[in-house]
């Protein structure tokens, strides 16, 4: 059909003859090839950037110092074959006034074009974060090649560069270790939870919620971190580890929570998937552990007599007793389970209240997103407090209730401790 039409067209155009169609097809094919694949990128000519770290320029001449961790695929592959083929990643460092400038400046050192579509993590050093995170992530939001669902983390007591240069044992690519560390912690203990670049850049809506970012530090001999020896010793001489959550205010780092407070925040942000709560035994010395398997947070916003907002949070937990290190706990009795549930609730409640206290009084940043809750539950009230929210937040009254249902006590009944 179409071929017939083309042929008719060819004949009308006077190319004519039986070979007209064939000639036309030839021309079309050549045109296809001539178009020249303008954005063809050879996979083996790309340097896949796995992580980006941003520090202040140590010489102070320029705004920032950028470090990229680039994967060396040939070494990643040879590792699985069993022959040690050198490091799996390498880093490049360059200074610049803007992030993109520094990236392009790196072309003086790299044999391959840097490729950012697979970047897993953005690490911003503490000092840089205090100056402001927003300018640093604009490139990530703006550039179509870079994903915004990369994780973001802060450093504590070390530089992003050092952190990216530290070799790791469990994962051959160090960034994988950092990234998965945060995810595992979020799922098992919840003192940190993963934050993505898009979470930070999309906070600008109504309610003025402030961002929180997990932080990383290096344990052990920091200077030994970048050597291959680091991972041949047991344990590694320098080990990157998770610290706690850092709180932003208007895109600038204003303070860190402690681990306990971080988890308090996680309860209130409904980020806890699974964690353990340590509870003092009710009638004897020692502790027992409750594993929280399911946690749910419900917010209600009320209004006090003088027109101030009151936040009412309800935490509904389900868990099981996983460990009893004291005698005399009769887990076969329903009342005992209820009692333990009550004790766990108190612990969780105090953690949450502590986080609220620190955020309201010390850090003074609405990382809880209460502004947003008020806006969503009581828009009229939000209109009244919106202008003064910065100061208002510190005095918002809150009421935390917590209920824990103990659903099991493991596969053993009475404690072995007598």
């Amino acid at each position, binding site marked *: 059909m179409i071929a017939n039409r083309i042929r008719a067209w060819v004949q009308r155009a006077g190319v004519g003859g039986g070979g007209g169609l064939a000639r036309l097809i030839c021309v079309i094919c050549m045109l296809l090839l001539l178009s020249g694949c303008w954005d*063809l990128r050879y996979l083996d000519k790309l340097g896949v950037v796995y992580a980006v770290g941003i520090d202040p320029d140590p010489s102070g001449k320029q705004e920032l110092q950028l470090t990229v961790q680039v994967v060396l695929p040939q070494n990643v592959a040879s590792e699985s074959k069993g022959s040690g083929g050198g490091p799996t990643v390498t880093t490049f460092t360059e200074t610049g006034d803007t992030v993109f400038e520094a990236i392009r400046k790196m072309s003086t050192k790299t044999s391959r074009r840097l490729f950012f579509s697979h970047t897993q993590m953005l690490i911003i050093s503490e000092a840089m974060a205090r100056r402001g995170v927003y300018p640093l992530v604009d490139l990530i939001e703006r550039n179509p090649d870079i994903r915004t669902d990369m994780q973001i983390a802060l450093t504590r007591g070390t530089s992003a560069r050092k952190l990216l240069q530290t070799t790791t044992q469990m994962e051959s690519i160090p960034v994988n270790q950092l990234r998965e560390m945060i995810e595992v912690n979020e799922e098992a203990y919840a003192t940190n939870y993963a934050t993505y670049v898009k979470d930070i850049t999309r906070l600008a809506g109504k309610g003025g919620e402030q961002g929180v970012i997990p932080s990383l530090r290096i344990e052990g001999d920091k200077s030994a971190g970048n050597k291959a020896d680091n991972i041949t010793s047991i344990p590694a001489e320098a080990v990157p580890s998770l610290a706690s959550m850092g709180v932003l205010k208007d895109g600038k780092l204003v303070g860190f929570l402690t681990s306990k407070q971080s988890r308090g925040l996680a309860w209130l942000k409904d980020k806890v998937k699974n964690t353990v709560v340590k509870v003092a035994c009710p009638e004897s010395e020692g502790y027992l552990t409750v594993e929280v398997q399911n946690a749910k947070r419900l917010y209600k916003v009320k209004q006090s007599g003088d027109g101030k907002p009151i936040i009412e949070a309800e935490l509904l937990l389900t868990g099981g007793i996983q460990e009893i290190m004291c005698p005399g706990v009769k887990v076969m009795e329903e009342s005992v389970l209820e009692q333990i549930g009550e004790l766990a609730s108190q612990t969780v409640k105090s953690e949450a209240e502590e986080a609220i206290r620190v955020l309201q009084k010390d850090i003074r940043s609405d990382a809880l997103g209460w502004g947003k809750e008020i806006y969503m539950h009581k828009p009229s009230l939000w209109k009244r407090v919106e202008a003064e929210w910065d100061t208002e937040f510190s005095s918002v009254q809150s009421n935390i209730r917590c209920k824990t249902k103990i659903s099991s006590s493991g596969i053993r009944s009475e404690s072995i401790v007598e």
Partner: protein
Amino acid sequence: MSGRMTQGRRKSGGTDEKRLPKAVKHETEQLKRIEEMPLTASVKQNMEMCKKELGESPDIIYRELELNNGDNTPILLIYVQGMIDDERMNEFVIQPLHRDRYDVESQAQDMTMLKWMEKKLLATGIAVEVKDWKLIYQKLFLGYCIIMVEGVARAIAANVVGGPRRGIEEPKTEMVIRGPREGFTESVRANTAMLRRKIRSPRLWMEQVTIGDLTQTPVSFMYIKGLAGEDVIDDLRERLKSIEIDGILESGYIEELIGDQKWTPFPTVMSNERPDVIAANLLEGRVAVLVDGTPFVLVVPATLNVFFQSAEDYYQRFDIATFLRLLRFVSFFIALLMPSVYVAIIGYHQEMIPTQLLLKLAAQREGVPFPAYLEAFIMELVFEILREAVVRMPSAAGNTISIVGGLVIGQSVVEAGIVSPAVVIVVSFTAIASFVSPNYSLGIAARLLRFFLLLAASTLGFYGIALVTLFILLHLSNIRSFGVPYMTPFAPFVGPDLKDTFVRAPLWLMKERPQRIKSDNKVRQQVDPELRKEPGQ
């Protein structure tokens, strides 16, 4: 052979006559002259004429007899050696003619000699009177014996067709685990009988035409009266009759000459060598075209959907059949798209691969001298060559080819670092997927289009794939098979017909025949009383 083909489906003889090659024109004229010549009453003269026309070919036997009726009337038998059954010839033709004495009384006065022979003497199933040379030659080369009698300017053609024929065997294509094991043979009559044995209904009608100026190939088409659409039958009859060609050696000739669309890689006529499949299609109201000399029977109208249906789909439980049907559709798309998607991802859309996979692929690409698209193109080509070689190879050499192909190309090339392992994986997987298609002709279409997609993917990435896919889709929506849109029941959308597409619904749900194949009777179960009537009532 096809070079000497006169143009098929010619409508008006006048203008095209000039375009015929000289040799063909000459040939046709000569044939016409012979055909127009009348039989003479003299046996000797007829024999001379025949010998002259047939070039004294030694396989044509002229047996002269004399009838023991007192007059010693000369009789001439003409037949082709090898095409007749010698025993039947002796027993049923020569013996009756050769009797010692004829009871002249039995030769009724009101019967002519020829009629008497036909009615009383010859013991063959079919014996017809023929008057002109055209018919004589036609019967002669079908394996009939021509009987001429002195003094009569006519002849009798007696059916003693025989000679070696391949028996019924299990079909080599579209094998089934469960289902009938018989396949069509090269004899059109045996094939039509096989269909009759499946559908024992007076409504199974057949028509026959002879196609091919030189090959005189009998072509039959069968349909179930009252089920098949009359317009499809008329259309088919018209198209078959308009074929003017020197020879038909396989149903592929017919397929190409009666197909609606000349410029398409997709088959618009279905071919199959399984009687059960053809019978099923007849029951759905389609028309089967049987060509002498090939076990492949054609079915029209054929929509794209038909090519994904396998005989076994209906012999297995519907849930299993549905799973296999889906698998077949998926495989088709893999066979069509996988190499091009690979090339597009590697060359343009690296951000779309999971990171771990990207690293693995990047590591494999280290040090490979060719760009990915060239690599894929070369490997696809090598595979096609290999496949063609295996098909044409004497089967004894097949093992060598698979060792050379599998080991040398699959392994050494990768180990030498000339081609990345990923491409070999992609190409082999594509190859396996392309074998899943139950119908060979659709598989070939996918093979061909794959290269266009590969070209588009290597120049324009996913955009190119989308463009070509769109083009293919447009094309598919544009073609028809005997008036039925090729994409039926997807476009035009026919909801009830979807029961036998991506899924194969339980038989107890498929109460109606496909609606869009122009069938005249839709109800499949709760048989329509109309169908029980005898035809012609």
